[in-house]
């Protein structure tokens, strides 16, 4: 607020702030609720520190993609090709590393391949006009197929990367405890948060998803905005693919399979509207860790891992339904 407020106005201001941050507060509430459930279900596991280190190690694999995917979904589009782009980026690494023996060149090629794949998704959507749902199902198959053709279905050992600084920088343990990928996830979240909330680009992301026609009429370059968001997801998918491969020291051509559901679930559980125009990086960040915790929580609570998908599915349907209901109420 820019000027002093009367007590009444200040109370009104507090209510407004509550409303403004309702999405964020809601997701924190969900996180605390689920954590308490797990704590009651399996106190021995959830009172020890090890499980949290494990969350910080494995959740970033999809949180790194869920954070930028939030931008795509805010623009009213969707990207289903990112699991394949993870493998496509690593295929570029494979080819360049085998040719040049340079981990750094391979790493750069990996990221560039990701950006290129994301950029192509964007171009197909905005220039040819194919709905992103269909376009990215197509590119998902295409990139996966390309990976299989190039690698001939063969994986690649990543042991040589341990000799470069990239290894400790991306998947090392800071202070022997905190996984570096967790720090990278925070860095991603802060950078994306800045651009979404404090930069003209983010303003255009929200406007594009809310009312594309109005944004276009008011001079927002909606096509460029969408293409950039797809390219960022491509970059993040390639980065995440590299981090996963470094963590397990092997690149499997099937890399990325199994990441679709938890990444999308993180975005939707985080409060991003499937209809576009609203969503927060904070929500996706917290939701990623909820999703990351569910698997471990279910197993620790004595259920079989088969329950994980059931719970993920329920979470997606419930969060999207709640948004639809709330948005109708506001209207």
């Amino acid at each position, binding site marked *: 607020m*820019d000027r002093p407020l009367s007590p009444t*106005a200040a109370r*009104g201001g507090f209510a*407004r702030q509550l409303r*403004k941050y309702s999405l964020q507060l809601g997701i924190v509430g969900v996180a605390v609720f689920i954590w308490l459930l797990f704590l009651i279900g399996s106190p021995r596991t959830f009172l020890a520190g090890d499980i949290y280190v494990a969350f910080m190690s494995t959740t970033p694999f999809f949180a790194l993609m869920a954070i930028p995917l939030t931008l795509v979904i805010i623009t009213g589009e969707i990207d289903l090709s990112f699991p394949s782009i993870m493998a496509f980026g690593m295929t570029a690494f494979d080819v360049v590393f085998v040719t040049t023996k340079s981990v750094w060149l391979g790493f750069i090629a990996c990221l560039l391949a990701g950006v290129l794949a994301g950029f192509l998704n964007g171009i197909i959507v905005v220039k040819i006009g194919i709905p992103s749902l269909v376009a990215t199902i197509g590119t998902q198959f295409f990139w996966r197929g390309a990976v299989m053709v190039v690698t001939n279905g063969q994986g690649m050992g990543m042991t040589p990367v341990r000799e470069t600084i990239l290894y400790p920088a991306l998947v090392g343990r800071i202070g022997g405890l905190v996984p570096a990928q967790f720090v990278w996830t925070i860095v991603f979240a802060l950078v994306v948060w800045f651009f979404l909330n*404090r*930069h*003209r*680009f983010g*303003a*255009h992301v*929200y*406007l594009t998803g*809310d*009312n594309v*026609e*109005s*944004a276009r*009429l*008011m*001079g*927002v370059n909606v096509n460029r905005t969408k293409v950039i968001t797809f390219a960022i997801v491509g970059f993040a998918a390639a980065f995440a693919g590299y981090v996963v491969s470094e963590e397990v020291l092997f690149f499997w051509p099937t890399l990325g399979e199994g990441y679709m559901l938890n990444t999308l679930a993180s975005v939707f559980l985080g409060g991003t*509207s499937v209809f576009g*125009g*609203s969503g927060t990086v904070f929500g996706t960040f917290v939701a990623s860790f909820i999703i990351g915790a569910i698997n471990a929580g279910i197993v620790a609570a004595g259920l079989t891992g088969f329950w994980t998908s059931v719970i993920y599915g329920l979470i997606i349907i419930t969060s999207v339904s709640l948004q639809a209901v709330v948005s109708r109420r*506001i*209207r």
Partner: protein
Amino acid sequence: MSHILELKNISMTFGEVAALHGVDFEVGSNEIVGLLGDNGAGKSTLVKIITGYHHPDPGGQMYIKGERIEHLTVARARDLGIEVVYQERALADKQSLWRNIFMGRELANRWGRLDLRGMRIETQKLMNTLMGFTSSAVTPESVVKTFSGGERQGVAITRALYFQAELIILDEPTMGLSLSETKKCLEFVAGIKSAGKAAIFIDHNIFHVYPVADRIIVLDRGAVAGQFMKDELSLQELIDRLYLVAQTGRLK
């Protein structure tokens, strides 16, 4: 009176269909022109020509602020101060008031970093002046979805005035509004004249156009059927003549 816009002998054909033929049309620099006409009369085509979406057939002439314009584009029309306010497409519903006011023209530094404080302060000033929002419940952070239809049109009109639009085209701004919302909307339209600017007010509803327009132009089947200053005709006489237009294509 100087003219903000002059069209001479404007025609527009789509394939075999002549949407407009030989239209002469002008708007004074501080004049509200009501544009009436049935569906298919050519109102939308005319607006799209004025805003640079459509390029008319060769042979016509267009002048904006006295300058002959050969190939008007959407961007050029905006640079020349022509803004359109659409009923449904004006605002982004889920966004705050300040985001809507500065839509596509955000205050930012050279690197694109938003000046949030500046935009909120400017929005607050506009709320207190042009928009006349006095309730403490409405702030620059308020989401426009919660506004009434009339207020929403007010936001769109205020935005156009704030960015120095000289000619504001209102495309059926009262469509779907309740009586009280329509009244509010018409107050905003009258405010355009008070601000020294011009407007083209397009509507089906003569009862909405008549009170705020200085001059009324009736389009019929792609041509100007007639035009007159408001003080030449009473509302009842205008209604009678519009019936005549529907039957004969002419006002007299």
